């Protein structure tokens, strides 16, 4: 009976340690391992949105056949945002705090290739 109690306690202890590792250590480790890639994806998505906005702005200056091609390139460019979104979901699923991700995104917005408009977009009234 005592042996069973000991094994049960050991199992519970093991689970608790593992859960602590998974909930507290793993998200930090995961974030540390993948933050660079996530920042790159955040930049890529912001630039794709810049590019799509730029395409919209110049539609009027283009002949009809080029408008179509231009619209398509803008849409294909936005596939970068699909990948970014997918990675964001992966971070959340791995326990990374949304605020930590937001910090990476804000730091990424400093990239010189991202337009002013994309940088301040979230604060516009």
């Amino acid at each position: 009976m005592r042996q069973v109690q000991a094994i049960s306690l050991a199992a519970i202890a093991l689970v608790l340690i593992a859960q602590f590792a998974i909930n507290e250590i793993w998200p930090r480790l995961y974030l540390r391992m993948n933050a660079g890639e996530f920042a790159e994806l955040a930049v890529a998505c912001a630039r794709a949105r810049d590019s799509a906005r730029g395409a919209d702005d110049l539609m009027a200056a283009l002949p009809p056949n080029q408008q179509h091609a231009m619209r398509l390139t803008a849409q294909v460019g936005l596939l970068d945002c699909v990948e970014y979104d997918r990675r964001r979901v992966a971070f959340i699923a791995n326990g990374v705090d949304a605020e930590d991700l937001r910090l990476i995104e804000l730091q990424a917005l400093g990239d010189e290739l991202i337009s002013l408009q994309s940088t301040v977009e979230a604060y516009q009234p």
Partner: protein
Amino acid sequence: MTAVRTALTISLTALLLAMPTIVAAADIDQLLAKALRAHNVRHLPTKPFEATSKYLLGQALFFDPILSGNRDVACATCHLLRRGTSDALPQSIGVHGTGLGERRQLMVGQIEHPRNSLDLWNRDNNAVTSLFWDGRVEAVEYKGRRFRTPLGEHLPDGLDNALAAQALFPLVRADEMLGRDGERSAATLPDGHADVSNELASDTAALSGEQRSLAVYELILERLIGRKGDEPTLTQTRYRDLFRAASPDKAVSQITIADVANAIAHFEEIAFATRDAPWDRYVAGKSDAISDNAKRGALIFYGKGKCAACHGGPMFSDFSFHSLLVPDAGPGVDGRGEDLGRFYVTGWAEDKYKFRTPPLRNVTLTPPYFHNGSVETLAAAIRHHLDPLALADQYEETGAFAYSVDQIEAVSPILVSGTPLTDEEVDRLIEFLKTLEDSQLDAIERIIPSSVPSGLPVSALSAQAG
């Protein structure tokens, strides 16, 4: 023992339930497939290689310098297989040149050609609606003819396609193949060709425009097949045989310059067809035909790079006309460095400085780039597209602005706002463009003949092999 097993099972289950979820990265093939479907990208159908009688006639004409005034330049002189059917020079050197490929040099005091030699890949494709940098040959009805060309209503009848119409024009340009009045062929050429008058240029010197071109064509035919009633030379006998084999129903007297142009165009269609590009294999469904980097490059090409806005379609060109503020180089059309491009064809002010979007198949093999060969590498050519207006404020040595307001305002609106790509993304674009190379290029050296009917040297051979 049962209790231990139970405890372990509970622990493992709990652990598995608490394990983080692994989310796979997006599948690049899936994303690219979406992009390609949206852009309606299809693989290029493979054209069979058939050395028909018409092909053999076209092959002889393509490689034979007898078509040029001074019997020293063939089509193959500026369209070298080993240079991706271009010639590796910034601006082509036709007549009055020595050497081949990047070693070709213009003799002192002779007229320079203003433009870069275009490649010849897949020019029979229906997507190809305009030819030459300024599109002076177009597949549109014009003055009662099927094609719009500088010859207008005088364009000879019987041309098979726009490519055949194109083949007529280098023959009548003084700086490409015709040469000038009063010139003679080199004394070192074989008997029958050495030190003879350039009758193509001399006998037509009093004429101008279309009339001169038509007269040159008649004299070329005379060189090739002789006059009715005259005893043909060995060269003429050989060409008569080739024409008879290519068009058995046609008498020699019925052969026209259109038959010459059609045969050259047919040869080009067969010889310069892309048959095995990794990109076509990928689009046909072989996902390992290209690298992941090339796939990412393709996504940039069809996406944020905006390349496909002009370089779309099976030939990677819209065959339309755009200005990129390309740096000046060479003599220009006016001899002072200026080239107004499409304007010379239409006369419309809005067409100044515009040039036809070059197709991109085998583009990695054809440096230097742009209409005047002013940019040496593909990476530099791509970077120029990303921000052409970066050159707008440059000064010349004299202190004047290097570019006029007209030139700056002509820049394509697609490029005006700039396209910020990183160096890594440019590298990926190049990886993608490499997949447009025909991997059978080495195998098609069979197109080069060991001799031509005139007996003139197939000088293109040395560079082709090199």
